[in-house]
């Protein structure tokens, strides 16, 4: 299977005064289209760096990042914005909804700027918020807010759905429900979903598990039989 996403020797070096911090010290991995990928690793291992670089929010110091045949690492600032705009859906740990727009409006806000959006109401319906569309974020629970966030990301019809600790701020059940939603979306829409988490327990539900340690990929394995999230306990 042809790699849909491919990272080759990606490094990221931060300069903090005179000290160099190698947040990513040469990361290589490949992801196929439609895969549900979980990237796990302890705090400070370089997960977020990978996310930033892959999401076009930051540049790599060296190496190349191929997404659907294009090298993101070589993009200019403006190209990266366009890339974020059209190709990436982002789910934040803290949802990051615009507080004075309703759930529907938050989704529509994102749609307003992209080329080929899905219908906002439809997507919200799919994430199970049919009845809460007119509510403001403050009137929604955490899980519901995360659903809006996911809906906002999905509605853009992106090539990649990047999720940064999507369950981090949620309770166990809600977290499970969110993961379930992501997995379902991946399956139903053949969406490539990358979930970044420090929670090892959810790895079994992924098609591909990438473990990161000290700025390097320590192991990458394909899971021939991913389990449903309901069966996972942590």
């Amino acid at each position, binding site marked *: 299977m042809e790699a849909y996403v491919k990272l080759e020797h990606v490094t990221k070096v931060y300069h903090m005064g005179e000290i160099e911090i190698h947040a990513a010290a040469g990361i290589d991995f490949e992801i196929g289209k439609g895969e549900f990928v979980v990237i796990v690793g302890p705090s400070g291992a370089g997960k977020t760096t990978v996310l930033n670089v892959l999401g076009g929010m930051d540049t790599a110091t060296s190496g190349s990042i191929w997404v659907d045949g294009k090298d993101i690492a070589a993009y200019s600032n403006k190209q990266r914005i366009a890339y974020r705009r059209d190709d990436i859906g982002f789910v934040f740990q803290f949802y990051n909804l*615009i507080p*004075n727009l309703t759930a529907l409006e938050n989704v529509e806000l994102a749609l*307003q700027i992209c080329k080929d959006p899905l219908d906002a109401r439809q997507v919200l319906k799919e994430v199970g918020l049919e009845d809460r569309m007119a509510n403001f974020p403050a009137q929604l629970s955490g899980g519901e807010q995360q659903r809006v966030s996911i809906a906002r990301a999905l509605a853009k019809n992106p090539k990649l759905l990047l999720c940064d600790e999507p369950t981090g701020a949620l309770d166990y059940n809600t977290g499970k429900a969110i993961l379930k939603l992501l997995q379902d979306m991946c399956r139903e829409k053949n969406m490539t979903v990358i979930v970044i988490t420090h929670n090892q327990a959810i790895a079994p539900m992924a098609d591909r598990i990438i473990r990161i340690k000290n700025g390097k990929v320590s192991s990458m394995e394909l899971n021939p039989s991913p389990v449903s999230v309901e069966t996972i306990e942590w």
Partner: protein
Amino acid sequence: MNRFLSIFLIVAMGVAFFSGIRASEPDMRLSGDAYFDEHDLMDLKVISTMGLTDADVDALSAIDGVKKAEPAYMTDALCDIEDSEKVVHVESLTESLNRIDIQKGRMPEAEDECVVDDLWLLSQDFSVGDTITLKSGTDTELSETLTTDTFTIVGTCSSPLYISFDRGSTNVGKGEIDAFIYVPEESFCQDVYSQVWLSVDGAMEATAFTDEYDALIEDVREKVEAIQDERCEARYDEIMDEANEEIEEAESELESAREEADEQLESAREELESGEAELESGEAELESGEAELIEQSSLLESSKETLYSTRTELDNGWSQYNDGAAQLEEQWAAFYEQEEVFNEQEAALDEMTPLYEEAKAGYEPGLASYETSKSQYDAARAAYDAQTSGLETMRLQLAALEEKIGAGTATAEETALAEQLRAAIGEMETQKAALDTWESQLEAAKSQLDQAAALISGYEEGKAALEEGRTQLEEGRTQLEEAQATLDASKAQLEAGEAALADGWAQIGDGESQIASGWQTIEENRQLIEENRQTLEDGWNEYNEAEQEAQSEIADGELKLQDAKSEIAGIERPDWYVTDRDDYTDYTGYGDNADRMRAIGEVFPVLFFLVAALISLTTMTRMVEEERTQIGTMKALGYSRWSIMAKYVGYAFLATLAGCVFGVLVGQKIFPYIIVTAYKIMYPYVPDVVIPYHVGYSLMASAAALICTLAATLFSSYRELIAEPAELMRPEAPKSGRRVILERIPFLWKRLNFTWKSTIRNLMRYKKRFFMTVFGIGGCMALMVVGYGLKDSILGIAKLQYTKLQLYDAMAIVDEEADDDERALLYEQLDEDENVAGYSKAFMQSVTLDHEGAEWDAYLYVPETLEGLDDFFLFDHRVSGETFELGDDGAILTEKAAKQLDVSVGDTVTAENADGDQITVRIANICENYMEHYLYVSPGLFKELTGEQPTENTVVVRMDPEGSKDLDALGGMLLDHDCVLTVSYTETLMEEVTDMLQALDSVIVVLIMSAGLLAFIVLYNLNNININERQRELATLKVLGFYDREVSAYVYRENILLTFIGVAAGCALGKVLHAFVIQTVEIDMCMFGRNIEPISYVYSIVFTFLFSLLVNLAMHFKLKKIDMVESLKSVE
């Protein structure tokens, strides 16, 4: 650090502006005071109705509290410059008090030198080195006051008594002083001082225009007034003594005058009498002279007779002589004829003389040679004749021979014989021819000789006849010459007779002219005598008159003496007038200006400060909110509430304090400097700007700033501190989005995109920020509007007054006393002038209006007729624009006067003039007016009130707008009339007002600029807070793929909306504030406009938006820098 800086700056601005503008007022006073102290401006002035003496001066200096008393002279005089009459105040130079500054040239040194008012010199066409001639404006001669009336200008000066443009008033000329001049003390010849300047102990140290100073002066003033009576009494006695002495002197003078007059009359009479005697003897002499002349005339006549007879004799002699002369002429002519004939003959003879000589000489020898030749010939002839027979034989022989030869038969001898024969015949023939020739020659010689003989005898006869003729001629010539000599002698005799005759006539002529001149002399003498007689008669008349005059003069003197005596009895006791500096309007005006500055200082800085305080409050609140978690942590760690709070309070305190110190230090220097300097336009000679720090204002501003920020800090931190630590550790529950009213109008709402929706909801959500921004921008905008509005209101009044309300171009004050003819002439000329569109006569008088105890000075203006008054005045209501007509039912009062007197339409007002005459009139209308104050009364009403027709003393003239508009020409024409006292032009007034208010203009510029700066800071600060608060939201937008400009636009929308709202609020607030400020800064003389021009709003709006734009630009870069990673962070 950014936050610290922003608090620091905003506090510094607020404090600087507040304390700076407030300090401007005392600084103005201090600057004035420094100038006054430096020039030792007097504190009190004493003037007496009878002058002041050295004793008075001594008494004044002896008063406790009086530091120095310095006497001086002064007088007011008139001075004609070009066509106008100027009133000049002449002061003597003083050494210690009221010292002047020389601006140009030097101090006067001689009696006839002066220094003049610098401003006056600038406004007039003369310069240092010119002279001015003064004349008295009263009945008293100028020479009683000044030693000279012509002064050379040696320089210009400024005086601490006249710091601005006002020169005070006087009772001379038109009543207003145009200029002052300073002359040396010696130029005055008065024996008493006109005034005494006093300086007061401690006054120098006290600041002018303060209560402290006023109290000090009042104290001394009372003391001065206390000695007034005593001094006045002394002065009175002195005057009385002097007067009595003078009367005694006058009496003795009168006596001596009487004696002198008698003496003089006596000697005059004697002179006249001797003159008469002389005249008589002269007449006798004249008569004898006449008789002599007549005698001489007759003598002359007889000698004339003799001359005539001599003439006749001479004439006879001349005719005889002429006859003789004619005869002689004839004789001479005959003689000359004879002479000529003789001469001809003589010449002919002379011609023949050589021939004769030749003939005579040749005749004798010729005769002899002929004789010989004849005898020879005869002999030859005889010889020849002898030979003639032989010839014939030969000829026959030859012929035979020739025949033989011819026949050829001849022998050779024969031939030779023939030949011989032939030669002999030839020779014979030749001899015969020679003899014939010789014979004819002899005959010719014989005839020649005969002729010569005849010639000789003829010549000798002629010669003898000629000699006889010559003798006869000589005799005739002698006779004739003798006759000529006789004739010449008789001619000489005749000529001598002629000469003698001419001499005689000349003598006669001389004699005649002598007689004529003799007559003339007599005539002259007769006239002289006649004249002398006349003179004598005159002399007698004069003598009589003088006698009478002397008598009447003496009588007059006696009468005067009598009057003087009674006058002395009526002398009033002198009065003192003790005045202080308030007597000088410039001085009080300066104080008023400072007060006006205070009025501005009361309004502007407060608003300014308020805005500044609100901004620092917002900033501090934000800080505490941002550090919520930290507070929670600290609290959880066990820090006490107060120690946590101390951190924020300390932070705020430091930032504010630093701002206060900086603001006070800078603001109290810069603002007063600009303002006091601006006022120097009005006070060009007050040189020093004194800018000390004012602790009071500094503390006030600093305390206010500290209280504001500290209270804000305490308030916001306290709110956080009472919360539980756990609560604090959690992020603050986000404020719920709320639906806004606009959403209820789906029609509109649906058209908005999400960013707009978010923007509008945001505005509603952050109410505090909303109001803060609106207030900040609105406040600054209002300040700018007020600033520009002040400009409009103040600078516009002159234009409104003179182009809308008072439409005339010139106003002439006409002498009330002038006679009707003169005035008629003036009006006639105005009628004729084609550049004059019209004129209106009026009665104008300065009056004090009174309404229920409130008093206000104004002009009473009564037009001569109501007809055509519209062309010169417009009476309207300022707000409604309704126009009024002046009618007999009541007066029209100008707006400000009405307001000050609290008069409304229908009330009655009492107007009192300087003489105490009063009229009470109902106010029918109140009209718009800006400059001065007027009470317009119709002529009918005036007559009804006073019973008198108003005397016209004013003419207002309107120029033809199409005409030349040459005001100078008009003014010249008006002033050519003696009855016109002064002419003023509205154009000039407009310029003056504008100039005067220019000072305020600079102040306004300062206000506008400060407001602009504040607007900038407010916007920047609020935006900064806004962005900090919403960093996460903005980062999320970026992650979602918003371009930078889309992110900026998202923020800008709010800013722009807020700016719009702020501007709208500012316009309204500005209008209200303007109305308030304009009343506080108004001066008594005028009413400022209440208008703000639309363009001023435009300027203010443009500036506010410009600042908004600048701030947004700065924000763009800040927004660009927002890190997307922020979006990943946990909520604080």
